[in-house]
């Protein structure tokens, strides 16, 4: 039904006005345009406001800084030396000014105007010649050419007159009448003259310039921080600050980082902190300038190490890449060193990346690699497999070569023609020769295989020894919760069922080798305790729990060792850890792995004392009978459990020799897509709780490996198998950092740190250092804390010298060949082995490690490379001492002022009671003269805290002379005293020592 038409006769279609909606919508459109403009200029460019804020804060900070720096500068400038320099500069400047004023005048008033005049005349003529020359070049007829040539000649011959000033700067004018050639010559002459004059001026100004440089160097060397002028410069820079994107562009990989659009303080010459910038952390400077020196941001960018989205500038979330779709979110502060791993993936120790190093060390020394493959860890097994594969390929090649060679001979014998036969015989011969080359290759590989056989080690102890080693009842107790028995043990806690504990114990017990141990009488426990605490056991092992704990964390805590083992085994083990119980059933070619524990070369008596002491380390815990361990039926079930839990990843177990790793490979875990990390029932929690990322997963998993089982209904064998390591919060962070950094890097090879020169020796060496815990006793990097240093006894002033030597500059100190010898036999003697070869005075003993030749070489190269020592080392023959020199040095050496033999060993047991330094007799074989020289001059620079005193020599007249009363013979000696002592030391003989001792040197 139609509505009644409107009463008025006006047509609504034609009369309705759209002005209002048009106006309103146009207005809205305009507003959206304004909005878009605002959005573009400000809302999406938050860094603009940030930059303005930075300028304000930085300027006010600089204003505060300026007077402080000015005061420091003033202090330096008012020093006598500076004033002297200043005066010199000023007088030199005055001199130079006086001398150069004439030259200036000559150049400016004479040579330059004259040159201008001559050149304009010369150029006019040259232009005139140019035209006919062009025509000449393009002319075709000979006649035309000839006429043009004559034209040119006539122009060249024309003499022009030029009004010029004289070149002596006097301002006199003269008129030159010259043709083209003369003008050219005059112009040349003037040019040379000007160059000469300028050179002369520079040379006259030189001394003043040098002095000025010296003066500014003086200031620079002594100035802590910026000078007031430099601060002013910065303030000025802020005045001219242009609000704009600051970006780093790495052209070769088209990488763009705009982090510094907000983080403006990152590279400012003043080290800014959040506090100095009004609490704005965004403006603080990069905390490690040293790092930036090696990794110049202009070359490496920012997000390459830190992650985040370097391009994004629209918001902090976008820039830091902490959102769902950015695969490389900014590392959190505690994990910041994760960024190092992507390029430093070949290393176990990266300088300045301590958290990462801790993570790698945990991965190594908590045995993570037993279950999880990670490239670089347990590289020996991988290499062994590879070597064996290569050998078999080569062997196959040999066989086929032989076959082919034989075949060729037969074919040659039957060939129709001689040269065909000859070719075939040649071929046969070539193949035989090739085989001999292959044989050599195989021999080398076999050598490597033997080496690797020594190097390959499982993480945990061999369980085939357990029957002779362990107390039977103890085994199930340990298995059910190792951390109950020994808190912090490296053996993690598996979530085993009772029957699993029983069947595993039974299997292991019944499959271990049964053997007899030599029985030993008990020793002296008190002496044992002393030996245990001083011989070096505590470098790796610890004893005592909680507050009383002392010693290292590398090996087991021995607090309750007496409860688990037996005395005779302990004696055998301590005396020679490589001694294994013979297995009568073993196949002939069976390889049994050697332990990490080195041989301390203790005498049997000492060993008994220590074992006796250790056997007393126990509580009175009762152990339940474990008869089931002898039940074959129980044992039969154990094998499956052992396999399920991957026990063979860390232990040698009979019947599981070929078992592989059960865990997932972690080499690239950090770049594994998030979807592939199983957050299980926590997926939504994680997404909404903000921890749906790698960090969140790793942290929770490491903290509690069963975490992601929570809420899941699974049967026992389906549950997560990873055992609990009871890691501390710091350890979780360190391992998380390591895993976060374990990524498939986006960077091309030349960004990665994979050196092929000496630096690769350092990388290689650290693996051994860390694997064998050299760090437990020795400080290798400045700031290292060894296990010894934490022991109370060694904090006593009397015991400081008993600390094992620092190895900061070991490579520079010792000769490589000697080091090889020492590492293979630290006693430096085949007979007298119960001693230290170098530092006989040390209670702690440098043990003999079960190194392969390869490893010994690696350790040696490590030290050499760390000290930038070239290999091979070619010792420099030291200049023989003249008789006079020998006499002089002997005087000095044994004089009262330099009582060297007071501390250095002499081989005389009575004298050596208080010794705290090595014998001079081994110096020439052991030390490098260059190092020895530096050592004598300032030992504290090489080994801080050493017993060797500083300032034995003073620098005078371009040489080092002894800093004390000099024997009379030195009166007219012009050479370097320290150098003389070095030569004396390197020509020191047993006879010399005897005669010195006989003559009654001080301290005798």
């Amino acid at each position: 039904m139609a509505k009644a038409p409107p009463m008025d006769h006006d047509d609504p279609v034609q009369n309705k006005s759209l002005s209002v909606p048009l106006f309103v919508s146009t207005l809205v459109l305009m507003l959206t345009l304004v909005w878009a403009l605002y959005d573009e200029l400000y809302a999406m460019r938050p860094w603009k406001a940030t930059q303005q804020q930075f300028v304000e804060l930085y300027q006010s900070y600089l204003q505060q800084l300026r007077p402080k720096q000015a005061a420091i500068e003033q202090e330096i400038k008012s020093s006598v030396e500076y004033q002297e320099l200043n005066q010199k500069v000023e007088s030199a400047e005055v001199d130079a000014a006086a001398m150069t004023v004439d030259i200036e005048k000559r150049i400016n008033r004479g040579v330059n105007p004259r040159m201008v005049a001559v050149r304009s005349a010369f150029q006019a003529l040259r232009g005139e010649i140019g035209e006919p020359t062009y025509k000449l070049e393009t002319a075709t007829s000979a006649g035309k050419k000839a006429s043009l040539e004559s034209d040119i000649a006539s122009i060249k011959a024309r003499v022009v007159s030029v009004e010029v000033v004289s070149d002596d700067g006097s301002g006199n004018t003269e008129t030159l009448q010259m043709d083209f050639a003369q003008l050219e010559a005059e112009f040349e002459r003037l040019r040379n003259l000007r160059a000469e004059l300028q050179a002369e001026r520079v040379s006259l100004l030189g001394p003043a310039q040098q002095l000025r440089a010296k003066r500014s160097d003086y200031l620079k060397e002594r100035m802590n921080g910026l000078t007031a002028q430099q601060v002013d410069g910065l303030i000025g820079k802020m005045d001219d600050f242009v609000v704009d994107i600051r970006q780093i562009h790495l052209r070769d990989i088209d990488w763009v980082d705009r982090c510094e659009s907000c983080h403006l303080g990152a590279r400012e010459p003043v080290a800014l902190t959040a506090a100095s910038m009004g609490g704005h952390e965004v403006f603080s400077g990069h905390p490690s300038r040293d790092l930036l020196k090696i990794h110049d941001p202009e070359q490496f960018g920012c997000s390459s190490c830190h992650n985040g989205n370097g391009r994004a500038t629209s918001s902090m979330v976008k820039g830091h890449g902490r959102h769902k779709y950015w695969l490389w979110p900014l590392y959190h502060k505690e994990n910041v060193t994760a960024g190092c791993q992507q390029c430093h993936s070949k290393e176990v120790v990266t300088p300045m990346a301590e958290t990462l190093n801790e993570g790698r060390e945990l991965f190594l020394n908590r045995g993570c690699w037993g279950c999880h493959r990670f490239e670089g860890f347990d590289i020996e097994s991988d290499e062994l497999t590879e070597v064996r594969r290569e050998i078999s390929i080569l062997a196959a090649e040999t066989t086929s070569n032989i076959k082919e060679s034989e075949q060729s001979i037969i074919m040659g014998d039957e060939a129709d023609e001689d040269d065909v036969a000859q070719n075939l015989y040649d071929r046969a011969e070539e193949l035989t020769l090739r085989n001999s080359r292959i044989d050599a290759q195989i021999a080398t590989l076999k050598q490597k295989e033997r080496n690797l056989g020594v190097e390959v080690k499982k993480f945990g102890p061999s369980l085939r020894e357990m029957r002779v080693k362990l107390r039977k009842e103890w085994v199930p107790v340990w298995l059910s919760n190792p951390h109950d028995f020994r808190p912090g043990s490296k053996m993690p806690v598996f979530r085993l069922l009772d029957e699993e504990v029983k069947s595993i114990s039974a299997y292991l017990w019944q499959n271990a080798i049964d053997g007899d141990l030599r029985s030993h009488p008990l020793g002296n426990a008190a002496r044992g305790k002393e030996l245990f605490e001083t011989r070096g056991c505590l470098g790796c092992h610890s004893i005592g729990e909680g507050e009383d704990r002392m010693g290292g964390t590398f090996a087991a805590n021995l607090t309750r060792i007496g409860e688990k083992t037996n005395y005779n085994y302990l004696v055998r083990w301590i005396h020679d850890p490589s001694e294994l119980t013979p297995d009568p059933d073993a196949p002939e070619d069976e390889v049994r792995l050697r332990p990490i524990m080195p041989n301390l070369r203790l005498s049997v008596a000492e060993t008994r004392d220590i074992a006796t002491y250790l056997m007393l380390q126990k509580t009175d815990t009762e152990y339940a009978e474990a008869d089931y361990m002898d039940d074959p039926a129980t044992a039969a079930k154990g094998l499956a459990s052992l396999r399920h839990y991957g026990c063979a990843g860390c232990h040698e177990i009979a019947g599981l020799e070929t078992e592989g790793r059960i865990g997932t490979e972690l080499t690239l875990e950090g770049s594994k897509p998030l979807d592939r990390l199983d957050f299980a029932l926590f997926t939504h929690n994680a997404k909404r709780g903000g921890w749906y990322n790698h960090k969140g997963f790793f942290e929770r998993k490491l903290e509690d490996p069963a975490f992601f089982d929570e809420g899941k209904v699974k049967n026992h064998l389906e549950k997560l198998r990873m055992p609990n390591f009871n890691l501390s919060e710091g350890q979780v962070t360190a391992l998380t950092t390591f895993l976060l950094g374990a990524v498939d890097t986006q960077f091309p090879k030349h960004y990665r740190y994979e050196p092929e020169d000496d630096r690769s020796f350092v990388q290689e060496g650290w693996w051994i250092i860390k694997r064998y815990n050299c760090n437990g006793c020795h400080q290798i990097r400045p700031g290292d804390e060894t296990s010894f240093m934490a022991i109370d006894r060694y904090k006593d002033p009397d015991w400081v010298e008993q600390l094992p030597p620092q190895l900061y500059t070991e490579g520079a100190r010792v000769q490589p060949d000697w080091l090889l010898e020492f590492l293979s036999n630290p006693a430096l003697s085949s007979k007298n082995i119960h001693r230290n070869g170098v530092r006989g005075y040390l209670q702690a003993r440098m043990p003999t490690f079960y190194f392969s030749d390869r490893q010994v070489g690696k350790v040696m190269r490590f030290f050499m490379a760390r000290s930038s020592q070239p290999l091979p080392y070619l010792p420099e023959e030291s200049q023989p001492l003249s008789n006079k020199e020998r006499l002089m040095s002997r005087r000095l050496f044994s004089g009262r002022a330099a009582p060297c033999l007071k501390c250095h060993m002499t081989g005389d047991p009575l004298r050596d009671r208080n010794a705290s330094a090595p014998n001079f007799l081994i110096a020439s074989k052991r030390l490098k003269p260059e190092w020895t020289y530096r050592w004598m001059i300032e030992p504290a620079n090489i080994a801080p805290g050493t017993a060797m005193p500083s300032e034995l020599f003073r620098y005078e007249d371009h040489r080092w002379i002894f800093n004390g009363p000099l024997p009379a013979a030195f009166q007219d000696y012009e050479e370097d005293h320290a150098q003389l002592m070095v030569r004396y030391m390197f020509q020191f003989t047993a006879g010399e020592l005897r005669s010195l001792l006989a003559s009654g040197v001080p301290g005798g």
Partner: protein
Amino acid sequence: MDWYQLWEIISLPDNVPIVLLMIMLPFYTWYGLRQAFANDRLIAQLEADPEMAKTHHRKTQPFKKGWPREVHVWPYLLRIEFLATVIVTAILMVWSITLDAPLEEPANPSLTMNPSKAPWYFLGLQEMLVYFDPWIAGVVMPTLIIVGLIAIPYIDENPLGNGYYTYSQRKCAIWTFIFGFIVLWCVMVVIGTLIRGPGWMWFWPGQTWDHNKLVFEVNRDLHEFVGLTGTWAIAAFGTAVLGAFVAVSAWGTHKLLTLTEFNRKILDRMSLTQYLLLQLLMITMISLPAKMIARLVFRVKYVLVTPWFNI
């Protein structure tokens, strides 16, 4: 109830059009039908009163003698068009400023997205994949949809309702179109967007999209219900069932086409080709809900199983 999940889906910038669709479609359906009913009331009046029919201008819009039947495009149409562009531009500006176009991680063929979804406007087709094999859902159905749409003017022999909204004069056509467009297409798009979660599983609004959710579903081929074996027997059985379905739905469609006097009159105007084409399209269209019911309620996987293709 997990409303956050729903919000997560709806607030995805790419799903905003779906939300718009869910608002605009009902609105315009109502808007169009409202006029249709208004027109229908006028039609009823005119049908009842032939005198009035002769003089009436036959529109619901007001009209008076003396008003021009046509107006100038300039300015009466152009000003509206101009207004529309201004408004649309303003809307686009606001939309573009406030909502950022999605950009996810760089493409990575080794990392499957779960759920991996086609653009929202194709989700109807993707949803169909649940019920049919890809060759039907992805190729045959879309082709038939296009063909069917093009064929509409050539099948529809109803001369009424040309150029004005009406329901009563085109009941059949409107019902069919609403069924096809809104129920089968738009609703399937909405289901594909809002309901289908990881693993293309059914999550009611308010249910958490749980990647770990497992649904035990045994979908059986129809012949397994009967227990047939043998390729030919199965194929024959399937063909028979399919034939039965075709027959039933053809009968149903025919019933519909002959339901009222008016319908019969229209049917009478149709050629055989038109009729057969209409039947084909109708049967195909009905087959989708039929299969949906068979699948969702009776867990039937295939009806017809042959060595080369399955339906």
